[in-house]
């Protein structure tokens, strides 16, 4: 057997549009690997038998197995292996925080400051190649079982559940309140980070399995639990946790204050960046914008704001290192001109006599160790008040629940945040036949974790449909 060569240091980097160019377009700025680069990168993977990258992937993709197919230049097979575990390879290859997941535990990193295989870029490559090639991509599904499942919400959790249920031969209908499917992948993540063609392709593949998506259907209004219970054998709730939280300081009612969800929805779902030529939904441009927050959503707001030609600031009460967004992404937005204010906490939004935002008053913070051993806590620095002038404040400080879709289910156990963390290990709620997964269960997490919930729930739903057994595990 040939000796394994550890190519620890020659990682191929993702080609990016230069900052000056990319901040002027909503097109995707990470350009993807060309074929030769992808194959070269695939050969850096030593195809571990017991691969340490797999258990740290929330969807536990068989990473070496599909990378091996890329080595063999069999992209269709690579994509098929990805899809055994997740219907969103093109999405996850782009939006997963890989450096904290699969790419945090690559064998190549175990010595000499080695660099991980670019797993995310390869995952994207496999999916994009299949899409762009236009080759027919058929997926097998089990014979029809005659069972019907209603899925509430066409976001990552719901679509994933629908995909794995359809493959098992069940008839699935998804009910979605918005005009488009995709959930946060559509209204939240900007096209600059996720090409809509890639998203549409993966949703179409799910529809090709016979999954029907009914948009414009508000569960709880257009159709109620009572109707669904009569028509379906099981229900999966994957409605997310989408209601923008506010920072809770004076001045939130002023003109120019947005939740991240409103700001992003206008642009991503209704294409306000094309206003007024090709879209009718407005969004301010050429202003001074302050985004409050330190997570992925804050980054998405920055990316979006910069592309609207706004002077764009971030304020976050912790440091860059303790934020939950990726290091690389802070670099990207800084290159594009975002001004990042770390250890800065807003205390008041200031308005003029017309009720318009004119600035945001902040204080400086310092991090002090947490007595209970948790993350270091930010503590205000005395006499550090200052004002950042701005016209717009975007609050990217987390999501709250939106129980409209499940508030009419009799006796459903809801937690104190009005979410469904009350599900058991098999994603069962306490109401027979009703399952839940994704952000509605965990309150706000990554796309890939929602996909995993959908997949595991589909397995549990399948078992329930076959056995009729319902054993909700009380805590």
């Amino acid at each position, binding site marked *: 057997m040939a000796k394994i060569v550890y190519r620890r240091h020659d990682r191929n980097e993702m080609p990016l549009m230069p900052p000056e160019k990319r901040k002027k377009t909503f097109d995707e700025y990470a350009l993807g690997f060309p074929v030769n680069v992808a194959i070269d990168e695939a050969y850096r993977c030593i195809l571990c038998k017991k691969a340490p990258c797999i258990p740290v992937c929330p969807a536990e993709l068989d990473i070496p197995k599909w990378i091996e197919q890329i080595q063999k230049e069999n992209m269709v097979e690579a994509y098929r292996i990805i899809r055994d575990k997740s219907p969103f390879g093109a999405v996850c290859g782009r939006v997963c925080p890989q450096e904290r997941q699969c790419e945090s535990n690559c064998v190549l990193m175990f010595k000499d400051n080695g660099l991980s295989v670019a797993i995310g870029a390869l995952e994207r490559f496999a999916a994009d190649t299949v899409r762009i090639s236009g080759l027919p991509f058929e997926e097998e599904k089990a014979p029809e079982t005659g069972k019907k499942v209603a899925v509430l919400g066409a976001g990552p959790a719901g679509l994933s559940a629908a995909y794995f249920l359809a493959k098992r031969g069940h008839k699935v209908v998804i009910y979605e309140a918005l005009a488009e499917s995709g959930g946060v992948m559509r209204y939240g993540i900007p096209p600059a980070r996720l090409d809509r063609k890639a998203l549409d392709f993966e949703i179409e593949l799910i529809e090709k399995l016979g999954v029907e998506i009914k948009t414009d259907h508000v569960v709880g*209004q257009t*159709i109620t639990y009572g109707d669904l219970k009569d028509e379906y054998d099981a229900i999966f709730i994957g409605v997310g946790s989408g209601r923008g939280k506010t920072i809770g300081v004076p001045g939130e009612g002023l003109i120019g204050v947005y939740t991240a969800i409103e700001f992003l929805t206008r642009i991503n779902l209704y294409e306000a960046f094309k206003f007024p030529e090709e879209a009718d939904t407005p969004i301010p441009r050429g202003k001074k914008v302050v985004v409050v927050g330190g997570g992925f959503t804050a980054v998405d707001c920055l990316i979006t704001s910069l592309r609207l030609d706004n002077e764009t600031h971030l304020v976050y009460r912790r440091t860059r290192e303790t934020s939950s967004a990726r290091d690389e992404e802070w670099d990207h937005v800084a290159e594009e001109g975002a001004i990042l204010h770390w250890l800065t906490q807003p205390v008041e939004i200031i308005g003029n006599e017309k*009720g318009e935002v004119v600035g945001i008053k902040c204080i400086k913070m310092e991090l002090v160790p947490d007595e209970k051993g948790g993350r270091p806590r930010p503590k205000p620095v005395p006499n550090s008040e200052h004002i950042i002038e701005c016209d717009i404040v975007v609050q990217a400080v987390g999501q709250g629940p939106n129980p409209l879709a499940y508030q009419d289910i009799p006796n459903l156990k809801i937690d104190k945040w009005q979410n469904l963390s009350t599900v058991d290990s098999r994603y069962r709620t306490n109401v027979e036949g009703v399952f839940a997964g994704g952000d509605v269960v965990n309150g706000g997490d990554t796309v890939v974790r929602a996909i995993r919930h959908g997949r595991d729930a589909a397995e549990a739903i399948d078992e329930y449909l076959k056995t009729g057994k319902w054993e909700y595990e009380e805590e």
Partner: protein
Amino acid sequence: MGFPILKKEVLNDRFYLLEVHAPHVLKKFKHGQFVMILSKKGGEIIPLTVFNYDKTKGSVTLLVEVRGKSTKELLVRFGEGDELKDVVGPVGISPNLKNVGKVLLVGYNYGNACVYNLGRGLKELGNEIHFIAGFEDSGSSLSGGLFADIAVDIKVAFGGIKKVKEEVRDFVDINKDTALIVSAGIPEFEKEIEEVADVFEVDHLTHASAIMIDPIGLSGSDKVFLDGDVKYASLDGPWFDGHKLDYDALIQRNNIFVEYEKEALRRFEEELEKERKKSARKKRI
């Protein structure tokens, strides 16, 4: 797969009726609820009250007021047989209605359709309905016949907000047994009606037309303030206690995009003007 327009009827320069096939909206529809429509990709989603409906046909009829680009475009670019990309609904809550006796419905422009929608529910419960249909001017006012079937009397009033307010004051002054005023229009108008309701100590149910971009309160754009509480017009509304609604805050919020909306309408009118000239030239040739 859109929602076909079954009928379009132009009432005057300002108002038209649009009957749309959207059976899914009607299965659970209750009086007072509304729909949201998006005419095309790239369009603007707008909330519209259900003015009329036909359950056997599966159609809803919307009374549309030309206000900005979207409503103008619907008027000139969409006709019978065309499809709307999205019709979402029903949205909002039908308030807890009771038989209270004498009810005055008062609308202003498009708001007449909203009070009419809710009024049908009130009528079914046995209330005695009186209707003041308010309009900005005589040229754009509609026939009282449109709203008359639920009311024991209907008065069309035009000449602006103050004029309609006077009519309301006169009515309540004479009819001391008025148990409830229901108002809808623009918050500037509703605020004036609240003044009357407050002076005469009559219950007041009013309609909050907030900026709304989704049907489930996701974005929070449709925030309204009631005695310090934050509510969402799409989730908790559109009907609120008129004594509690913060009209000034709503007026302020509704002005957020005014400049952008004017710009969009101006561009669209320019486009229409160009087309007119072009077709006029063709005719001459």
